[in-house]
């Protein structure tokens, strides 16, 4: 008997980039995740996903609402997008009830209440992201803020990134399937899994040696560390340099561009200007160990 894990993928104030990134999963592939037993004896039953599902309209909404009723406490809710709250949430709606639009904030609340756990997919869902950037015209907030405001106490994992690497989402889902919900020790202060967000980009960057030696690129296309051209790697937590993107093909700094800090709660505003050097930041102390050694020798 194969166990079905129901998953609801709700899109709110988003651009669909997170959904497209999911499709890019290399191993397991998106086909393995949708069709096959992703781990022995377990199949992810993706009940609702607006970008891939066959059903439309009431037919689709029915599936979502039935899941909340019939599988209460047994499904994982993934929210992709920030949640618009200004003016009663009128800036975003998903489907209708009795001929009236149901706001995104209402949908998130209803679906989170009866979920087993909630995953905030992407920087918008995790922290507000670009739609919440000043002047935040629609009052966008993170999923965590909605849950707190509504007094909903559910296990929550943030998977930020604009978009996140598919492994960060599916690794988290697979971990829930195989080893259960993450404990407090598995997540950082921003509820990100330490497995993927535990280290700074800067710590694993292949251009780190150039930084340590003070060899900085002066213009795009140059060799050397991109710090002077605006790289936010020193303050950004993610494993991009090791995991790399699009089936391990490349990553931002691999293409010669500065990291724009998209996994951080500060994205985008405090990461901008994207092409200007970081200011007022305590950089990791470079070569401290050897500097002290040198003093000892003297």
């Amino acid at each position, binding site marked *: 008997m194969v166990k079905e894990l129901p998953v609801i993928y709700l899109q709110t104030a988003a651009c669909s980039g997170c959904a*497209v990134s999911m499709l890019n999963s290399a191993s397991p592939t998106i086909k393995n995740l949708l069709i096959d037993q992703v781990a022995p004896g377990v199949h992810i039953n993706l009940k609702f996903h607006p970008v891939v599902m066959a059903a439309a309209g009431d037919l689709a909404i029915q599936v979502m609402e039935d899941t909340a009723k019939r599988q209460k406490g047994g499904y994982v809710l993934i929210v992709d997008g920030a949640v618009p709250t200004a003016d009663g949430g009128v800036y975003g709606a998903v489907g209708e009830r009795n001929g009236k639009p149901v706001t995104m904030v209402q949908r998130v609340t209803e679906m989170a209440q009866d979920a087993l756990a909630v995953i905030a997919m992407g920087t918008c869902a995790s922290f507000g992201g670009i739609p919440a950037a000043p002047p935040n015209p629609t009052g966008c907030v993170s999923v965590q803020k909605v849950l707190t405001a509504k007094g909903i106490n559910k296990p929550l994992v943030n998977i930020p990134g604009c978009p996140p690497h598919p492994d960060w989402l599916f690794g988290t889902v697979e971990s829930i399937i195989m080893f259960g919900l993450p404990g407090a020790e598995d997540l950082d202060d921003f509820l990100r899994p330490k497995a993927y967000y535990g280290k700074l980009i800067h710590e694993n960057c292949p251009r780190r040696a150039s930084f340590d030696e003070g060899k900085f690129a002066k*213009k795009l296309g140059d060799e050397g560390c991109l710090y002077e051209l605006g790289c936010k790697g020193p303050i950004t937590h993610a494993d991009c340099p090791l995991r790399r993107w699009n089936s391990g093909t490349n990553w931002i700094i691999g293409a010669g561009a500065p990291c724009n800090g998209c996994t951080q709660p500060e994205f985008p505003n405090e990461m901008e200007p994207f092409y200007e050097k970081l200011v007022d930041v305590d950089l990791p102390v470079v070569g401290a160990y050897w500097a002290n050694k040198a003093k000892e020798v003297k």
Partner: protein
Amino acid sequence: MVKIVIDPVTRIEGHLKIECVVENGIVKDARATGNLFRGLELILRGRDPRDAQIITQRICGVCPQSHGIAATLNLDSAFGIAGKISDNGRIIRNLIHGAHVVQDHILHFYHLAALDYVNVADVATYEGNDSQLNSVKDFIQRGALEPFMPRYEGDYRLPPTVNQQAVAHYVKALEMRRIGHEAVSIFSGKVPHSVGVVPGGVTSTPTADNIMAYIWKIKILQDFIDNVYIPDVLAVAGAYMDYAGIGVGCKNLLSYGMYDLDGTSPDYATRERLFKQGTIGADLKPAPLDTGKITEQVKHSWYEDSISNLHPSRGDTKPQYGKKDAYSWAKAPRYDGKVYEVGPLARVAVTYAKGDPVMKELVEGSLKALKASPSALFSVLGRHLARALSAKFVIDNLEGWALQLKPGQPAYTEYQLPEEASGMGIIEGSRGALGHWIEIKNKKIANYQAVVPTTWNVSPMDDKGQHGPIEQALIGTKVKDEKNPFEVVRIVRSFDPCIACAVHFVTPKGRDLGKFRVV
């Protein structure tokens, strides 16, 4: 009279509601509502102009490369370097955007559109050795059928063996579009939301290994397009030939052109591009593109009439919710005062009408295979066919372009950030004509306007009362079964709408915002 409400329309980008009023089986009135507003235009103001390239990609995660390139061309023009992009820079941009558009077209046909035509349930009776199909058969037998069920029931016409093969191709296409994104990331770092295209050129430098890595991924896609995608479009078309006369639309087509073949002319409207710039009507006679003829009209949109009919470079947004006769937050972009459809159909038809010999062979060859006349291009099937030909036309050029790259030569040109400037960037996105306009003051973004493909296609009535393209395509359609309105979703999806794009460039004020309506 029956009212059909579809909310949400799935398998598109974004949050869309469609309402149709049906009388005696015919759509008499249609209305579309975008159910999300984010206001990115407001968010852009006051930021460093260079950041527009990164922020505007987040308009849409399905077509971020197109927005990134439109923004970059816009910034190049504002910074005075539109004619100074090196060949390496120009070509790498084309390679990034080329692989992107190809995978996007594959995504649309197989993963967004095909489930309206292909009966997945037929895999339950599959009796062969294809391991992928047998895994789908296992999936069906286990019985938890989402996200492929429920669905509209009835009008699935392909024989079981063809449906089974189409499902195998759906699975294969997932891999193909992923490989397309891998090809993009070779030069652009990662996708979605890549970083490689910047004002001045690109950030990456060509090397023998990345040129070859790119080419061999492209060859995989090329094989798929020739031997799977185009044959599948023709096979589906053969069973649904009535759709060559359904969803006709306005019959005026507009293309900005794409894939720069010349980087030295600063004028995007006339520089040499692979897909040609221009317009055509029902007579398929081409006319040159004049971006000065683009205006946005607001008589039926919730904005003050005083701002109607302005060119986007002078565009203004003065909301007036509840204005009499208005029903939409989308403005109505018009060209020379007329309604124009944009998209792969437009760029394929314009390039064909301008006499490109390769495109001529592609279009005429496929019409012949379908025993159809050129007028069939203006239809649901015509849009799907044009999308496939759009993919074929570009992919056949990518290897040759990649081989023109010169390792060791620059791919990036330096520039000065101007105190004050204005710019325009026009390009075809996967979904059609995409224009970005910028005004810079004190080295900051003072105003940013984007007129995006889906805004053209979902536009409401204009000042003269002319309906927008999707409206026109829906109105008059015969709906066989109001409970399973295949015709409506097939027409809407044939435009490949991207609602995130369409509604993110309006300014809110008042109540009940975030909606635009097409009646």
